[in-house]
């Protein structure tokens, strides 16, 4: 099934990207995580009709993509794929809010279109920040950061376990789906009955595996607590990264940079 394979490739590719050794990747994950959150909050706090205020924020993803050697085309595709929900909620704005807000010469642009553009801009910014976080840091480091910042150990381990077994389980699911596909000749999609059997089978196998994993853990002395030994060292450049970017975000919210630039340029022209 194309969906399963492509999902696996997706995760695998993002993970491969996270193994690179660029200055971005070498930063402490806590700095990156916090900066990303500040970024998202800053972007999301912009007003409903704000477009020029949002535009300067593009500098963050752009710089990180460049420094982290991340593929912009790939990221752009992922953003596009994730867009439907925001798009379909946002598209109601132009339908509902038709009063003209901005007059550009003869053309009047309604508030709805402006807020819709704002939504889509927000979307691109926030989603790219999240993807860059994972591609530039890797899940292990992100989880480590979460744990060091206070997330419960069992939750963090849960994420890591889940991730570790995604490949194994999607592999099994893929085999089940293929086996069925080879035996169905009408080419129609799967019916409900077969589907529920398949899911049931997958679940039983999963539970068996869980049991075996537990036995393997017990055999190595597991008594309930999982130890993860990975030291993290916060260096001055990590702090500088966080403080620098956060300050910039605050400034960009305070001053509308495109307006400043535009006015300055217009002033020069006169």
């Amino acid at each position, binding site marked *: *099934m194309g*969906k399963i394979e492509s999902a696996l490739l997706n995760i695998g590719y993002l993970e491969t990207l996270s193994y690179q050794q660029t200055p971005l990747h070498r930063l402490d994950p806590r700095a990156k995580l916090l900066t990303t959150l500040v970024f998202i*909050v800053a972007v999301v706090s912009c007003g409903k009709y704000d477009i020029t205020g949002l535009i300067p924020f593009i500098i963050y993803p752009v710089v990180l993509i*460049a420094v982290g050697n991340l593929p912009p085309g790939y990221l752009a595709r992922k953003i596009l794929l994730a867009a439907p929900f925001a798009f379909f909620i946002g598209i109601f704005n132009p339908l509902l809010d038709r009063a003209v807000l*901005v007059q550009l010469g003869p053309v009047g642009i309604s508030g709805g279109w402006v807020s819709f553009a704002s939504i889509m801009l927000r979307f691109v910014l926030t989603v790219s920040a999240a993807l860059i976080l994972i591609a530039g840091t890797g*899940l292990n480091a992100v989880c480590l950061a979460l744990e060091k910042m206070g997330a419960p150990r*069992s939750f963090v381990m849960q994420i890591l376990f889940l991730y570790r077994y995604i490949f194994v389980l999607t592999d099994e699911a893929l085999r089940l789906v293929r086996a069925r596909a080879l035996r169905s000749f009408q080419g129609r999609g799967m019916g409900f009955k077969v589907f529920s059997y398949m899911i049931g089978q997958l679940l039983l196998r*999963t539970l068996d595996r869980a049991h075996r994993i537990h036995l393997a853990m017990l055999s190595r002395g597991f008594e309930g607590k999982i130890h993860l030994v990975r030291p993290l060292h916060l260096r001055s450049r990590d702090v500088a990264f966080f403080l620098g970017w956060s300050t910039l975000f605050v400034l960009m919210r305070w001053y509308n940079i*495109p307006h400043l630039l535009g006015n300055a340029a217009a002033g020069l022209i006169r």
Partner: protein
Amino acid sequence: MHMADALISPAVGGTLWAATAGLTAYSAKKLKKDLDEHKVPMMGVLGAFIFAAQMINFTIPATGSSGHLGGGMILAILLGPYAAFLVMASVLTIQALFFADGGLLALGCNILNLGFFPCFIAYPLIYQKIVGARPTQGRILLGAMAAAILGLQMGALGVVLETWSSGITELSLSTFVLLMLPIHLAIGIVEGLITAAVVSFVWKAHPAILTQASHPPAARVHSHKPLLLGLALFAVVAGGMLSWFASTHPDGLEWSIKGVTGKEELAGPKEGVHGVMAWIQERLAFLPDYDFKKPEEEKAGQKEESWPEVSPGKSLAGILGAAMTLLLAGIIGFGLRRYYSHGKG
């Protein structure tokens, strides 16, 4: 159904993030206290199972579209509410990070909608009440259906409230509700059927699994506490959001109430969405001042500088400035790219 960051405000996102973070910590503590940390390998693998299962689609006969599993209910039935909640939270986290399915700030909202409601409300209050300690095929079906449908309705309502109270969308409460709830009713039915089918399958193969998962009677007594806490929290948050919105957008709330009470008119145009839209536009036409005033009032609630007046000169400056900013960003990015790939690679 996953909320995106683009649609929420910091207030809504932040509040729910904090709330679900607290609930996650509480669930983890509960797991530790009940010595259920041995469940972690099973939880991890079941999380991966949900992932894998979500990728298998089946065709829904009449519609030609495909359906797939959500998973919250199955997890709750197999693991109990706390563990299931943690698993759903972890699944949603991975989806947000790797698939951009749901935003990072909106993660709190998503965990509430898709984790809290099925695990802490639908499961104990509906499924467990129906199925009880001695499950039968019929009760499993009924319990799963009722719990899934109601759980998803609550989740959908959550999405609606979160988006609407953030004020980014133009959709009114009533329209949004009308949009989301019926769709999720259908999804809920599908989820209920899948859950019932899978649970029956597993139960027939290994009946012990279901009895293992339901917690011992002693724990049942305690299980109401987080539920009540969660409900209270939700009520406070929802109440807070609604009242905040009401205070900054008095017109908006009034208008939606008008929309709700004007329901008889709504039943008229039965051409589906178009009919509704037409009706709404009609109403808008009667309130021209309202529309123009709206942007100003929005800004009163948010501290940002004012949108330029509708004078051509200033708009042009804005556009020019925006173009310059983008150009600048592009140059910086390009330059850095070359520097790092040639020099440091």
